[in-house]
């Protein structure tokens, strides 16, 4: 190792002389940290005053062994802020009458991310109108 001066003491001394690989590592790391700071700064300027934008999309349904029906969906947050404790409600409607309601809560739907979940119904969703949507959120 082309290391620093061979001082014999309890604390290690950083000398002037260093192997080129130390400078290369240091240089790459400086660039990485600078890039990260740059990205966060850009994000800070862009995201100020944003709010969560939640959208639910149904992925599909299949019968469960217990005789019910599982409807899986994704909930996407297109906004720049994270939503917490997001209740997602699924209503099976026949005209104006609600036949069945099921609800689950997502702990978090992070900004610009998606989470998946499944609602379990007793009646067949294919035979009725199915509405799934987020009914609110809290700020984390």
């Amino acid at each position, binding site marked *: 190792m082309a*290391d*620093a001066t061979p001082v014999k003491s309890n604390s*290690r001394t*950083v000398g002037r002389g260093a192997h080129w690989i130390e400078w290369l590592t240091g240089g790459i790391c400086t660039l990485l940290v600078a890039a*990260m700071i740059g990205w*966060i700064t850009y994000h800070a300027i862009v995201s100020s005053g944003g709010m969560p934008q939640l959208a639910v999309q149904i992925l599909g349904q299949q019968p469960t062994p217990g005789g019910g029906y599982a409807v899986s969906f994704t909930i996407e947050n297109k906004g720049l802020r*994270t939503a917490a404790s997001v209740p997602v409600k699924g209503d099976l409607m026949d005209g104006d009458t609600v036949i069945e309601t099921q609800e689950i809560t997502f702990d978090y739907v992070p900004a610009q991310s998606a989470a998946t979940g499944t609602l379990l119904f007793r009646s067949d969703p294919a035979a009725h109108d199915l509405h799934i949507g987020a009914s609110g959120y809290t700020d984390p």
Partner: protein
Amino acid sequence: MQKAGAAGSRDDDDRSKETATPAKFLVGIGRGVGGALLFALPMQMTMEMWALGFTMDSWRLVLLLVLAIPLLVGISHRIGFEETFSWKVAVRDAMIAYGIGIVTSAVMLSLFKLLMAGMPPEEITGKIAVQAIPASIGALLGRSQLGSGKDDTGDEQQSSYGSELFMMAVGALFLNLNMAPTEEMILIAYKMTPWHALATIVMSITLMHAFVYAVSFKGGHELSSDTPWWHAFIRFTLPGYVIALIISLYALWSFERLDGGSFTPAMMAMIVLAFPGAIGAAAARLIL
């Protein structure tokens, strides 16, 4: 790095000491158990860690368990149960530490009634495996740090650049394993605005540098008088911080804290977790 010439004689010396006093070996094991308890109890008493044993993706757990082996061998070679001068001894000590980690985790989890006979075998092995890694690191550190003064000879050697970075990685990993499983890491990341994240980055780097060079703890490093401060900053502090960031990202990914999230929230969580990681990395340079 030790040179082969000196290694041979001291290695023989070591071996004769061991055969002469098996009691010494038992004391070492005892210190290992002490270290494992000291370092791993916070995790053994964390709810998220119990759940990880069976919710964690099996391949990620396997990867973590396999990566732990070279890590333990590296730590053992650097600080070891005793001064280890050959890789063979380092591997042996690493495996003993791994064993201590597994056994103490199993005992502690049973004591807390988290392991019961009726549980499926995957759950039992998973729960123990997740805990065994921090416990085995603790066993190695405990055996060297709780030991008597004779280990101090290791401090006088000039550490190579690589081993300096390695010790920073160990320090960062150690604090990260404690914190990455908890929900608070992502919760803090979600609460923060990007400006808070920027402040956290600046704080992490400043504290890291100050810990090692400015406030001159015992074992602190000094700059020789003709070296400008930014030499050490570029060569050691920034690489150390990047190591802390990478280890944070790995820990978060391993414990499934990033799944479904996009780039920016993941980066924020990484910055949050890298803060304790940076402190751990700086402390490792001082202590180990």
